[in-house]
C-alpha cells in the first residue's frame, strides 16, 4: 500500500499554529515521522493561501525537503501556489492534488503536470457534482480525465484517479458504489490507471471514537478490489496492521482472519456474511455491524454499534 501521509493539513489546529509561527521544526518533525511510520509520499494541504501563496508554498517545500526525500503531494485549489511549489521542488517527482472534470481545472492542472513532469490526482467529479453510481464515475474518468491526459501527452503512469470517498454519515448510499468504482476503474483503460482514495473521508462527521473502525473496515473492502494507494494517516497502527494482514494474507489470529475474509468476499463480488464473524466477540461483532453500514444494508446512526 502506497500511503500518502495526510497529516500536514490546515484543518489541524496544531498545523495552523505552526504555520502562523513559520515553525520549521514542527513541519520537519511531522514529515520525518510520517515517513518513518511508512508514508511513501507527503501530502501538503495548507489551503489556497490567497494572500501569501508566493511565500508560503516555496517555504513549506523547502522546509519539508530539507529532511525527507519522498514525493510531495501539493494539495491546493490555488494554481499559482501549486506552480510556486513545483518551481521549488528539487527531490522526488511531485504529485498535484488535484484536478477534476470541471473545465477550468481540467484545462490548467494537466498542463502544469506536463510542464513540471509531475503526477496528477484527478477526481471523478464534474461541475454538477459527484455521481452516486459507479458507472457514472468511471465514465467521467474515461470520457473526460483520461482523454485530457492524452491530449497534453501526460504518460498514463502519471495519472492517479481518485473516485472520491464520501462519508457513511449522510452519504451512505455512495459507500458501496465507490467500492465498485475502484474495481471497475482498473479495467477502464490499458494500461490501468493508478487509483488513490482519501480513506478517512468515509468517516467524516462520525464521532471520533468510531472513525478508525469504519476506516479500517472500508480499507479491507477497498483492498479487496485492488486498492494500492491512498491518502491516509500513517500513524494509525491498527490500520497498518490491517494492510499488512491483507497484503501478506496473514490469518494467524482471529482479527487478521476476519479482515482477510472481508477482503476475500469483496474480491469475489460477494458480501461479508454473518457466519464469517464470531459475534460473541465484541470486536468482531462491531466489525460485522460496520460492514453492514458500509454496504448500505443498515441505516447509519452515530450509535449504530449499540443497535
Amino acid at each position: 500500500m502506497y500511503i500518502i501521509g495526510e497529516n500536514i493539513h490546515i484543518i489541524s489546529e496544531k498545523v495552523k499554529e505552526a504555520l502562523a509561527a513559520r515553525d520549521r521544526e514542527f513541519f520537519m518533525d511531522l514529515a520525518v515521522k510520517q515517513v518513518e511510520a511508512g508514508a511513501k509520499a507527503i501530502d501538503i494541504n495548507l489551503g489556497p493561501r490567497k494572500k501569501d501563496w508566493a511565500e508560503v508554498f516555496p517555504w513549506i517545500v523547502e522546509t519539508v525537503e530539507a529532511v525527507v526525500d519522498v514525493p510531495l503531494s501539493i494539495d491546493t485549489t490555488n494554481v499559482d501556489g501549486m506552480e510556486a511549489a513545483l518551481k521549488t521542488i528539487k527531490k522526488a517527482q511531485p504529485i498535484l492534488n488535484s484536478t477534476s472534470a470541471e473545465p477550468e481545472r481540467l484545462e490548467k492542472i494537466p498542463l502544469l503536470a506536463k510542464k513540471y513532469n509531475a503526477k496528477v490526482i484527478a477526481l471523478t467529479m464534474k461541475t454538477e457534482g459527484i455521481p452516486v453510481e459507479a458507472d457514472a464515475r468511471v465514465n467521467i474518468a474515461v470520457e473526460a480525465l483520461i482523454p485530457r491526459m492524452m491530449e497534453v501527452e501526460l504518460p498514463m503512469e502519471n495519472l492517479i484517479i481518485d473516485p472520491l470517498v464520501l462519508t457513511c454519515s449522510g452519504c451512505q448510499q455512495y459507500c458501496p458504489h465507490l467500492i465498485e468504482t475502484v474495481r471497475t476503474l482498473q479495467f477502464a483503460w490499458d494500461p490501468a490507471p493508478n487509483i488513490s482514495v482519501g480513506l478517512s473521508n468515509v468517516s467524516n462527521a462520525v464521532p471520533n471514537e468510531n472513525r478508525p473502525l469504519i476506516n479500517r473496515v472500508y480499507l479491507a473492502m477497498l483492498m479487496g478490489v485492488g486498492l494500492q494507494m491512498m491518502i491516509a494517516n500513517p500513524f494509525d497502527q491498527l490500520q497498518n496492521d490491517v494492510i499488512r494482514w491483507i497484503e501478506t494474507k496473514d490469518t494467524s489470529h482471529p482479527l487478521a482472519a476476519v479482515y482477510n475474509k472481508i477482503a476475500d468476499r469483496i474480491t469475489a463480488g460477494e458480501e461479508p456474511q454473518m457466519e464469517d464473524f464470531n459475534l460473541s466477540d465484541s470486536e468482531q461483532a462491531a466489525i460485522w455491524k460496520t460492514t453492514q453500514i458500509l454496504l448500505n444494508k443498515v441505516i447509519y446512526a452515530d450509535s449504530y454499534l449499540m443497535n
Partner: protein
Amino acid sequence: MPIEIPKDKWTGSIRAVTIGATSAEGGTRTKTVTVGGQTTMPYLQYEAMPSGDEAPNKPVIAIEIKSRKPEDWSPLLADVWGEAMADPAQWAKKAEEAGADLLVLALTVEDTPEDAVRIVKSVLSATGLPLIVWGPGQAEKDNELLVPVSEATNGEKIVLGICEDKNYRTIVATAMANGHLVQARAPMDVNLSKQLNILVSDMGIPKDRILMDPTTGALGYGIEYGYSVMERLRLAALQGDAMTQLPMIVTPGFEAWKTKEAKVGEGVPEAWGDWKARAINWETLTAMSLVESGADIVVLRHPESVKRVKDAIEELVTV
C-alpha cells in the same frame, strides 16, 4: 394471458403500538388505538394476505387542540371550532364528534404545572379517546409541565412529547415510571431518526412504547424530503432494522396551516381561488401524501380535512 404481480418478501415488520388504556387495563379510556404491525410497504396488503396474516392496522387521525385559545391560528380554524377553542374539554368533545381517533393536546408556555394537570384531566374526563400531550416545545418548560402531567395520569398510556436529541431523558424517564409512551422527533433525516430511537430505547423504555416522528414539510414546502425519509425508514424496518421498526406520527395540520396558501385569504392571486377550499385542500393533500408514504398517525386541525382523509384511508385499506 394471466399477469403475475410481483411480490416483495420482507423479513421485518413494524412494531404494533397501543395508545390509551381502558379501565380493565388500568386507565379510563373507553377505547384504545393500535397502530403499526405492517409487514409490507404501505397499502400493498396483498403481499402479506395469502399467508393468512390479518389486515394491518390502518392509519389513524389525531386532532390537535391547545390548552389555551391559540391567537396565531388561521381565522378559518377559529370559525369552525368557535367558542370551544377557549375551553380544552369542550374542544376535545367537538374533536371527538368530528371523527378524531385520538387527540393531541398541546400545552403552552403560559401554563403552570397545576394548569397543565388540571387541563389534561379535564380533557380525559370530557372524552374517552386516547391522548397525546405535547409540551410547549422549550426543553425546560416541557419537562416542568410533562412530569406532573405524567404522574397525575399514571396508567393511562398517554403519549408524551416531543422528545428531541437535546431533550429526551426526562420525558422518557417519566413515561417509563408512569406507564406512558413517548413521541421521538428528529429533523427529517434517516440517520438522526434512527440515532434518537437508539438513544431513547437505550434508556430502557420498551420499543412498543415509542412513536417516531420523522418531521415533515407541507405540500410545496419540502414534503418530498419528508416523504423520502419516511419511505427509507419503512424500507429499513422491513429489511429488519429494529431501530426503525416504529410506527410514525406526523403533523401535516401544523405544517399545512403555516403555509401562505392556507393561512392567507387576502392579497393573493385571484387564480388561487376560494381561500377555505384551498386551505382544506392543502391540509388534506399534505396529510394524504404522508399517509401514502407510511404515516401511522396524522395530526390534523380542520374537521373537513379529517373527514376527507378518513374517507381516503378507508379506500386505501379496502383490498
